């Protein structure tokens, strides 16, 4: 009798963890190490979320992990000057820049930048050593290791990422930009972690850009935890622009204290497979959360957004708008859950998801889920799946605009409703421009970087 042994990707990752444990823990600070054991146990138990799991109903995860990826437990030396390869050409947009290369913080005059006003932008591992009190307090405080196998997997393997700290009362006008680059000569799985802490009455703008710069297969499984203190404001814009052989699994957790304001905007311009989880916990009265998203997909791309707004206390408001344009055979999904707990009286929660399908083969699933346990609340949701508005098209044609151009204008208009929520004007204009290029089919890369990544 011959026995056929097939190792599942789950078992493979667990043994990879056990075999490399020394290497993983050796260079890592205790704050990261102390959660690994429990996390790998969770992962062992949970495995990859299946489509039977309601939260992951529209995305097949496990098959992503069956490809051969290299996994590195220390940053691989790649000698390049960031400005030679990548120049984010958003004009007039002057930012504090942090770069993550293949999951590891890329040194920029060291692993930590401290601004005169006290803001810290740093490698997460380095920050855990230098600022154990702050990192220790917030690290892994929100990640759902016991219910989401992907999050547990990240916690088990994580070695680095970015730490951003905006101390109490500091108002920073200049955006903090985090660029995640994938650049290698082999396929890679990267799992890094970002921690953003905006303390009481502080204000910050964070721009996150994801790019793949070489034509290899990539799988990113990234967790970002954000803490926003009382009366603080944070705007986070994420721009995803990766090639068709890349898959991204993002898990963002944001907790908001009293009277805080948070606006997130995730623009999925390009990518083979994109899954974004966003959980926002309104944990202090008077807080408001705005979550916006735009997804543009064509060919066989897949984008899936899952949002979960948790109204835990009274007098908070949330407002969600996600819009998608799907072309060719692309598939998309939006699943928006809103929980209004029993105590959360006077909650206002609004959600809208609008989709444009450009072909009969493109598909989108949209699912709102409102769980309301308080009685004095204002909640609404609405979802639409439609085609280009023929009346609007005719109106534009009757003014001399050709059908193709009119269709494009309508699509820009549709997308602009999301882009216009970005507060920084130069960034907003640039994003409009990128969206336009993308919809015209001219976006082979997001800027003048010499790598052709799409």
């Amino acid at each position, binding site marked *: 009798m011959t026995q056929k042994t097939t190792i599942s990707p789950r078992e493979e990752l667990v043994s990879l963890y056990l075999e490399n444990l020394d290497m993983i823990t050796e260079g890592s600070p205790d704050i990261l190490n102390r959660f690994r054991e429990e996390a790998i146990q969770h992962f062992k138990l949970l495995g990859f979320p299946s489509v039977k799991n309601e939260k992951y109903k529209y995305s097949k995860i496990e098959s992503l992990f069956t490809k051969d990826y290299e996994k590195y437990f220390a940053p691989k030396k790649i000698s390049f000057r960031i400005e030679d390869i990548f120049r984010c050409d958003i004009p007039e947009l002057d930012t504090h820049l942090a770069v993550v290369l293949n999951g590891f913080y890329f040194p920029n005059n060291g692993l930590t930048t401290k601004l005169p006003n006290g803001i810290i932008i740093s490698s997460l591992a380095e920050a855990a050593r230098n600022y154990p009190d702050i990192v220790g307090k917030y690290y892994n405080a929100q990640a759902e290791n016991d219910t989401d196998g992907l999050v547990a997997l990240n916690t088990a393997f994580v070695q680095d990422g970015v730490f951003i700290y905006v101390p109490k009362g500091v108002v920073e006008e200049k955006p903090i930009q985090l660029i995640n680059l994938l650049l290698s000569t082999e396929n890679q799985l990267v799992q890094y972690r970002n921690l953003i802490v905006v303390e009481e009455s502080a204000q910050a703008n964070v721009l996150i850009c994801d790019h793949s710069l070489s034509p290899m297969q990539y799988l990113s499984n990234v967790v970002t935890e954000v803490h926003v203190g009382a009366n603080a404001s944070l705007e986070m814009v994420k721009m995803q622009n990766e090639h068709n052989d890349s898959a991204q699994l993002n898990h963002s957790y944001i907790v908001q204290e009293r009277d805080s304001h948070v606006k997130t905007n995730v623009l999925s311009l390009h990518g083979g497979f994109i899954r974004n989880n966003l959980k926002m916990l309104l944990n202090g009265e008077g807080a408001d959360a705005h979550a916006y998203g735009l997804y543009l997909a064509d060919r066989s791309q897949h984008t899936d957004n899952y949002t979960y707004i948790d109204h835990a206390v009274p007098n908070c408001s949330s407002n969600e708008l996600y819009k998608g344009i799907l072309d060719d055979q692309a598939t998309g999904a939006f699943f928006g859950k809103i929980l209004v707990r029993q105590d959360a009286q006077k909650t206002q929660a609004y959600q809208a998801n609008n989709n444009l399908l450009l072909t009969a083969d493109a598909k989108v699933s949209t699912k709102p889920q409102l769980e309301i346990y308080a009685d004095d609340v204002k909640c609404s949701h609405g979802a639409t799946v439609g085609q280009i508005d023929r009346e609007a098209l*005719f109106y534009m044609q009757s*003014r001399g605009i050709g059908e193709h151009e*009119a269709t494009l204008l309508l699509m820009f208009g549709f997308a602009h409703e999301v882009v216009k929520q970005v507060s920084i004007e130069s960034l907003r204009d640039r994003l409009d421009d990128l969206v336009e290029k993308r919809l015209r089919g001219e976006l082979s890369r997001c800027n003048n970087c010499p790598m052709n990544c799409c």
Partner: protein
Amino acid sequence: MLVIKDLHAKINDKEILKGINLEVKAGEVHAIMGPNGSGKSTLASVLTGRELVEVTHGQVEFNGKNLLEMSPEIRSREGIFLSFQYPVEIPGVSMVNFMKAAVNEHRKYKGLGPLSASDFLKLLRERKELVEIDSALTNRSVNEGFSGGEKKKNEIFQMAMLEPKLAILDETDSGLDIDALRIVANGVNKLKRPDNAVVVITHYQRLLDYIVPDFVHILYNGRIVKSAGKELALELEKKGYDWIKNGEDL
């Protein structure tokens, strides 16, 4: 300029236009009146190329060319303009970008290059003044959240931007108060030249006090049942439409 011969058209297999004959020459103003549901807007739709309406018989020539063969955008570039009875809201598309695209497509058709940003803004400003529209409107999305009157003024503003040879105004007066009506009519009159023409579709005499027609036609049940000079509109105002419906003569 415009010659319509024995035009029949249907919507969803229902014949709406049942043999229309009409000739509009450069410099003329025509009014088309008639009860609701007569086919006035359908005629405007045929002239502008709306897909919904299927022409089953007849011809339409515009400056010697077969209009019915042209796509809606080509008709526009050839000089046809419709002020919509129900202007369409287009969220996310700013008036400025909309008009820039339209003006530049018209220019391209004439073999001209696109206007520079400053020339375009100058034109925009000039034409806004002509129709006295609120400056802020052009910064907003096309018709989005506009009041009824603003939408109609916006139609005339677009007409001013594109300077058509033949403008068809489909109930541009409905929903306008008397001041707005005067502004809209003034705008149309200022754009009037010997080499262009206007077709005014309206129920009421009051717009025709400002835009004085050379000819008035009554369209009823898909046919032009009577044509005369401007006095016909006054009589209609007095007698209403019932006599037409009853098949009487005036």
